[in-house]
């Protein structure tokens, strides 16, 4: 799957060549992720694979798993403070903060269905971190900035107006193409 992302990311980076000075700040990885998700789901590209609905609302969490623990499977490439210990949830920013427009992506293996999921790690922005929030630092599949979409050492609030780093969420946005 790195190939897919490298293509997408190169496409992203191409825009820098034509208009780095004026437009690059407005290029949203958030819209990229959203589009990717929609396009992938809508055109049955990669992530249109069955999963067990019987698991219900916790389709992606097994019994006894704790999503405020850094060991939780979705956090395999998360470097940051968990939003679900900051007043938000695993997929929502805390009140008063803003969602980052861009994100990095991890590929994490769900032990409950044996599948690899694409996880979008968005930062929430515009506030300092919550004092006693949980900080996690995992780097599976992580790459330096030459694969920007896989890079977790950078503040992903970078395309927002308000740059303060608040916390990080982990959304499932697709199934990895194995």
């Amino acid at each position, binding site marked *: 799957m790195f190939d*897919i992302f490298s*293509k*997408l990311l190169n*496409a*992203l980076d*191409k*825009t820098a060549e*034509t*208009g780095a000075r004026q437009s690059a700040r*407005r*290029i949203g990885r*958030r*819209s*990229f992720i*959203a*589009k*990717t998700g*929609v*396009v*992938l*789901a809508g055109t*049955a*590209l*990669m*992530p*249109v*694979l*069955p*999963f067990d*609905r019987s698991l219900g609302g916790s389709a992606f969490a097994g019994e006894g798993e704790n999503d405020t623990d850094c060991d939780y499977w979705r956090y395999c490439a998360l470097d940051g403070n968990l939003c679900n*210990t*900051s*007043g*938000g*949830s695993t*997929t*929502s*920013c*805390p*009140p*008063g*903060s803003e*969602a980052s427009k861009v994100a990095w992506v991890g590929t994490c293996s769900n032990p409950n269905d044996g599948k690899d999921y694409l996880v*979008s790690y*968005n930062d*929430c922005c515009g*506030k*300092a971190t*919550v*004092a*006693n*929030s949980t900080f996690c630092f995992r780097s599976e599949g992580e790459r330096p900035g030459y694969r920007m979409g896989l890079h977790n050492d950078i503040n992903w609030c970078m395309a927002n107006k308000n740059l*303060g780093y608040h916390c990080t*969420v982990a*959304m*499932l*946005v*697709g*199934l990895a*193409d194995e």
Partner: protein
Amino acid sequence: MRVLSLTLSATLGMLAVAPAFAEEPFVPERLTVEEKIKPGPNLFVLDSNWAGSSNISVLSADDLSTKGNLSVGLVGQMVLSSDQKTAYTASAYAKRIVYGETEAVLHEFDVDTLSIKREIVVSPKFAQVAPSFNSLQISADDRYVFVQNATPAASVSVVDLKAGKQIAEVPTPGCWGLYPALEGARFSSLCGDGTITSYSVNEDGSAAKPVKSKKIFDVDSDPLFLQAQRAGKELLFTSYHGNLYRVSDKAAEVKLVDKFSYTEGAEGWAPGGFQLMAYNKANNVLFVAMHPDAEDGSHKNPAEEVWALDLKAKKVLYRSPVEGPVSLFVSSGKAPVLFALNDEEGEVVRYEVDPEAKFAAKPTDKAESLGDFAVLLQLGE
């Protein structure tokens, strides 16, 4: 954006090779932003930062779980509106954080959404002091906010919330601390000569002539802590040496109503800390942070006990052991909940207090890692 979209579509088009064989399509999760914090009473813990963003943790007062935070500038102060739905903070922003021109800002936050409603720039004379209950206050009618200044000459910025701006700077020479009166744009301040002076401001920003009390305390032999608690129509102060001062600010000239020692017979014990008193209205009981082996300079020592004082009987009801807090806050109801903040550990402990057991405090919950310089607690019930 157009360039990107086209490029992305093209790229994705090339990749659209995997067959569709799903029964139920995978639905990508979407990122949202929580609109409101969880309901229920809030506990605010302010951690002062002198080289970065001061942070106010907002916890559930029921179980100390985290609801979110507020981020402000350097050396933040905080006060709640009377309905506790709005939080006001004062803090400083220098151009280069620790140098360059400084702006002081009053922020108005909506508590339910932890979001900024307004920002009002105030005098840069804003006093950069340790978080202090009586350094930022609001008038009884919620119209005026009072901000403590120091240059080191003392003065008070008066912000008219209706006008949305600072309307006055009131000089308060030799006096310190803000004790809003029960009504109007009036406040008192403790003075270095042992008096308490009343100041009041008119709607146009003009100030009435300050009214000085008679000498109420002796700054050398029985100095008062800055923090006061409002008990009905009176203000409660404590001295370093364990004398409780009950003061009336009903009239412009503040008067000493009563004074008694609550440490008599308790050799070596004295009050200490920052926000060291917490008054429970329903029971007319005052909780005070107390340390043993008191001596000159121990008045900010962490507490080893919290004493529950019956203000009517003027006696200590119970001495509960605690884990080194310097700041307290108590709920107002019949079954008080007490919060105690240990600044060295950045820990807050929640206690349930039993009125049937002489107001003994029993720990129920603890929250940790709330900061390095967290000495201010506020409860929004």
